[in-house]
């Protein structure tokens, strides 16, 4: 066997060893694989509605159908407050925002499990897959936003005045915030579920629960929230609350003062901490997960 030979020049391209800093994000490498990212996005897009007649129309139909169901159940039957907005607009705006966050979370949280076969055979920066999920959903979010726009235009034609105000400009920022939050939760959960899958069962349940404790159904100024201190506290602790409220405030053009800066600050801080923990865990797990998955 060859013993330790001194090789000329110690500039190795790849060094594989057990100890590696879990904080090394290796952004350069991710950049090198950007084509893979776009191809994953394309794959997810094309593959989702293959063999359906309506095809991409489902992107529009899904939130609209859900909004109709919510309008009937929570609005018409349960008579929950919609802060004075038309029901469809109220629920649709909430659903579009929420489903972006929820999809990012649930899909990225299954990263390791659904791709174990791929990860076991070939190396590429694992973070590419969660990033592709976030990007795919982002495109979908933008498409769904046009549905909301169509509804707003419709209401304006029928005489109701709903004009987005300057806070709608916060939307891109909110989108990134949601993406980071979904990514943070998702990477954290996917790291924990590779070895012990118990968490996997909690994800879907947890996301649904979180939605009930968010302004998607209960706006902050509704009597249910105002009159119940515990419920109000939980709602304010939900990092998505500020985002949903701000989206509605801007897009549906609410009158009055914008009082959400504090809450938004909380969401931002929460997201930053969460994302750091999530990426740290993800990086730690990705190195050896093929052995334990």
């Amino acid at each position: 066997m060859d013993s330790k030979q001194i090789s000329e020049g110690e500039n190795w391209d790849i060094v594989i060893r057990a100890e590696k800093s879990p904080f090394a994000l290796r952004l350069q490498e991710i950049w090198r694989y950007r084509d893979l990212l776009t191809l994953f996005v394309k794959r997810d897009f094309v593959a989702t509605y293959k063999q359906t007649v309506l095809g991409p129309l489902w992107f529009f139909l899904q939130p609209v159908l859900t909004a109709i169901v919510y309008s009937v159940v929570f609005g018409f039957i349960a008579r929950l407050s919609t802060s004075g907005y038309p029901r469809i607009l109220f629920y649709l705006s909430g659903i579009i925002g929420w489903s972006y966050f929820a999809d990012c979370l649930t899909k990225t949280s299954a990263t390791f499990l659904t791709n174990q076969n791929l990860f076991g055979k070939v190396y590429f920066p694992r973070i590419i897959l969660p990033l592709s999920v976030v990007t795919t959903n982002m495109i979908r979010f933008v498409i769904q936003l046009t549905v909301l726009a169509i509804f707003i235009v419709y209401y304006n034609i029928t005489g109701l005045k709903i004009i987005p105000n300057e806070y709608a400009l916060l939307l891109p920022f909110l989108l990134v915030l949601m993406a980071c939050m979904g990514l943070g939760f998702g990477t954290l959960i996917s790291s924990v579920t590779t070895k012990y899958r118990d968490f996997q069962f909690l994800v879907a349940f947890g996301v649904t629960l979180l939605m009930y404790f968010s302004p998607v159904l209960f706006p902050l100024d509704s009597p249910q929230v105002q009159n119940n201190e515990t419920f109000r506290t939980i709602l304010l602790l939900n990092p998505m609350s500020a985002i949903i409220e701000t989206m509605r405030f801007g897009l549906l053009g609410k009158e009055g003062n914008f009082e959400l800066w504090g809450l938004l600050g909380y969401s931002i801080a929460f997201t930053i901490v969460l994302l750091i923990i999530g990426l740290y865990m993800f990086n730690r797990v990705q190195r050896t997960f093929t052995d334990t998955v």
Partner: protein
Amino acid sequence: MSKTVIQVSNVSKQYRLGKIGSGSFNDDLTRWWAKLRGKEDPFLKIGEVNERDKKGQSDYIWALRDVSFEVVEGEVLGIIGKNGSGKSTLLKILSQVTLPTLGEVKIKGRVASLLEVGTGFHPDLSGRENVFLNGAILGMSKKEIRSKFDEIVDFSGVERYIDTPVKRYSSGMKVRLGFAVAAHLDPEILIVDEVLAVGDAEFQSKCLGKMKNVAGSGRTVLFVSHNIYAIRTLCTRAILLENGSIKMSGDTDEVANAYVFSNRNLNEDKLVHAWKEGHGRFEGGELLEAKLESPDPVLSKKTALNCSVTLIIENDPEMVGLTMHLLNEDDLVVFASTSLEDLGIRLAQGRSRLEVIIPSDLLNTGTYRIRLMMVRKNRAILRADDVLIFTINEIAEKDERLFQKKKGIVRPALKWSLTSAE
């Protein structure tokens, strides 16, 4: 000396056997507790040699233990070993799919690893879309794939189906398309795991040819296969893994021979020139003895081999004949010969002794085994494997180059003559 492009030093990999559940959770806690107190991982001290067919004491095994080797630029290194010897683990570490428990690997240059053909194919996407996806997964840029697309499709031979979803493909077509993409990777180092085992004969030879091209173009290749023939033809050097450690490394032919022998639990000491005992009974008779008329089972190529078999027929023989198979190291039957066909010898009742001569200057150097079969009406009624085992050695000649093994299954001494010269 050419430069080292892969340096593997003291690589070990530990795996935990059994299920992951509350038991492994306990171990995790113990490990975490040890780490918290700044102590070494307690489970690294235990662990057994990985012997697949033996029941062990510990839940921890070393799939690889202290593996070190180097690969220089342009080398084609074959890695051989039985199932579970650590080949795949080694390749996984080299292709960064998993990390070693101890030790390190250093690599210079762009690596492409092909542990599976068609990794990441999406069944709902068309062949065209999958070529791009698969190429990107293997590390190609879109531009690169686009420029090679026609070549890839051409190589795969599935042009007609290129816009059909891959789920409608036959498994062979999928493999073809997958290998075609991989074959057009342009890495400095290529790591290939047993991909030739799939696909039809035509495609296999196409793949082998492509691999030869890659190897010939000065790129470094690491190749794992059970196909000893492929290893012999492609590799310049080989490593034999056994139970997670390197058992042998060096010249491809030597290592390949060692592997073939270790597989059969045979070694040089077990060469037999005479066989006598047991297992020779068949319906209506017994095989008594087989012998090479040479006291030494190591022979020169220049000597003819006289092989004799003694047997007894007890009952009335009805077309009973003796068949001999000569097998080489790769388990290939070099030739078969039967007493019935060649000489029309039908064995009479009683004790007989048959002799056959394997001519000189026919076999190539190497180790050969003789299998004897008793045949009645074209049906084998007895099969005795490895009855005689012998080695043909090269005899020293003036020309040094002749010490190398020549290509070919047989090596007959043919007469060459010059019929015209100007």
